[in-house]
């Protein structure tokens, strides 16, 4: 294998520049897209979203991309979501429900199997999962499956795993901010170094008035919900 073939590989990047060849789906947040390789969520790859707790807007960050992907003829597959994805809110966000597939496996191992099958099948544009295991081999398999099936794999995981190595192509860490704010730090990306937090407004979807909150104080990591286990 010579140097040229090594450099051609999708999983090899050279420091100092964002790779422009990466295939990506625009996130719908312009500031975020500028720091993501290819200008959006990577196709055929795993994206790991690390977050301190539920309810801070992690899904709202994905919803514009999911709405666009739902125009595709492929499934958007949710494997073992921690709560019920609320259909009226998904419709309000522009997601075509006829492309939504919910999978509720009984056991943890079945969950990983279902994520892998969905990613690999080539019939899912995106697969969302909330794995509670910290199993690097399993994650590696998922990354390969996402490549094989040209799917966007999103894994939502507890923020404490940020220090653990992961085969995911993109890793971002979320922190809540006042109002509809969300801070997004990039821990790992293809073709670029980690980068410090950027601040986004992630709106609540619906036609009602913009959300206004009282004065707001605390942010930062709270305790996990029981649902993280």
């Amino acid at each position, binding site marked *: 294998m010579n140097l040229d073939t090594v450099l051609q590989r999708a999983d090899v990047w050279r420091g100092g520049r964002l790779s422009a060849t990466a295939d990506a789906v625009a996130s719908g947040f312009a500031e975020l897209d500028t720091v993501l390789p290819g200008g959006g969520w990577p196709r055929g790859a795993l994206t790991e979203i690390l977050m301190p707790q539920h309810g801070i807007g992690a899904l709202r960050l994905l919803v514009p991309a999911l709405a666009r992907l739902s125009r595709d003829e492929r499934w958007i597959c949710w494997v073992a979501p921690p709560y019920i994805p609320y259909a009226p809110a998904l419709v309000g966000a522009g997601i075509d429900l006829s492309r939504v597939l919910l999978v509720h*496996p009984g056991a943890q191992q079945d969950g990983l199997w*279902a994520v892998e099958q969905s990613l690999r099948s080539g019939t899912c544009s995106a697969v969302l999962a909330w794995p509670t295991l910290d199993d690097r081999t399993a994650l590696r398999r998922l990354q390969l499956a996402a490549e094989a099936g040209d799917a966007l794999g999103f894994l939502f995981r507890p923020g404490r795993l940020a220090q653990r190595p992961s085969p995911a192509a993109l890793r971002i860490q979320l922190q809540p901010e006042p109002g509809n704010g969300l801070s997004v730090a990039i821990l790992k990306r293809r073709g670029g170094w980690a980068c410090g937090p950027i601040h986004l407004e992630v709106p609540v979807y619906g036609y009602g008035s913009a959300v*206004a909150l009282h004065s707001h104080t605390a*942010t930062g990591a709270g305790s996990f919900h029981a649902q993280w286990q």
Partner: protein
Amino acid sequence: MPVAAARALAHDLNVCSRNLQAEADALHSLAAWAYQFSSQVSLYPPFALLLEVRRSLTLFGGYTALLGRIRAGLRELGYQTRMAAAPTPLAAVGLACCESEQHVETPAALLGALAPLPLSVLDWEQSLLDRLHGVGVQRLGDLLCLPRDGLARRLGPDRVLYLDRLLGRQPDPQALYQPPPRFERSLQLPGEVAQAGALLFALQRLILELCGWLQGQGAGVQELEVRLWHREQAITRLSIGVQRNSRDAEQFLILLRERLQRLELQQPVIEVGLCAERLLPLDGQSLELFDAAREARQVDLLDRLRARLGSEAVRGLSAIAEHRPEYAWRYSEPGQGEQAVNGQQRPLWLLPVPRQLRTDHGWPCLQGRLKLQHSRERIESGWWDGQDIARDYFIAESASGSRYWIYRELDGERRWFLQGLFE
């Protein structure tokens, strides 16, 4: 040869009793399978099947190609066979009985092909054959060159008619096999099988038979039933379902493998069976279109997930035009969700059941006091079906930065509940 004599010659001989019923069943099932190659299949018990293939030759690309497909299929099914083709049924059987697998194309070539065959290819009684041997008739050719009236006198008119049919001088209509309206087959296992995975091998044979049969019927099925017989326990029944009417053996086998992996056998299995009814018409051509192929793959994912996780574990979503939040959605068949638009701000996560919140001096708490948004949404609805609600909804934020959808009852104890999360 008596068994004792055979044992004397081969001391490690394994003697099995012949099961004529099983042989007859196998011949029937092969006839059903062979129906995919010809619509005119006849049984020639106890050991032969007749297929009228002239009309199938164009469809399958000629004799050699057709023979290759039949041979490959039979090998997959685990049968050893000999095949021959001739213008008359009896000649084809006769040729197949001999070692050489010939293909005689024209009636003119028939006499020459049959002449060297031994008399034993005629299924006449042995005493008659011995008599013919006695007068120096060794081969079919010897018999066929004898004068006709002499033969009629010596052998009777039935034998002459037989020879006429053999040579195609008289028509030889065959009773056509009619495939049964449903597929039901079973297979005794050579021993007891305790591992669910090991059953796949035997079931594979039945599935190949089924798919050949479905091909002949121009049909597919959406549901299969696999039956496992045990020595003492009641039959174990497994149902394999596919979204789209199919006769794809590969697809059924993948689903069956998933299903068997999940199965825990209480007792070993001694016999396996496969049953399919409710055939649905399936046109072979339409499956090859591009869109259909993609749709088929999507359905294939659903089938795989359902085979392993159960059908209730794989669902779609519907949004319903309904004011009460808990009734504004429901699970539906994947790909068929209703999409009612609700103009209000709604959370992306809903709790399966609203959870009551603790209060602190009247304030709702979740990891400390929640901060409420100014605006509230009042929902009062459902008086007509007794499931009525009267609530004020708020968006609330916890000290740690999570945003919740909570409500307060307007009646009774005016309790607070958490119903969703603005994820």
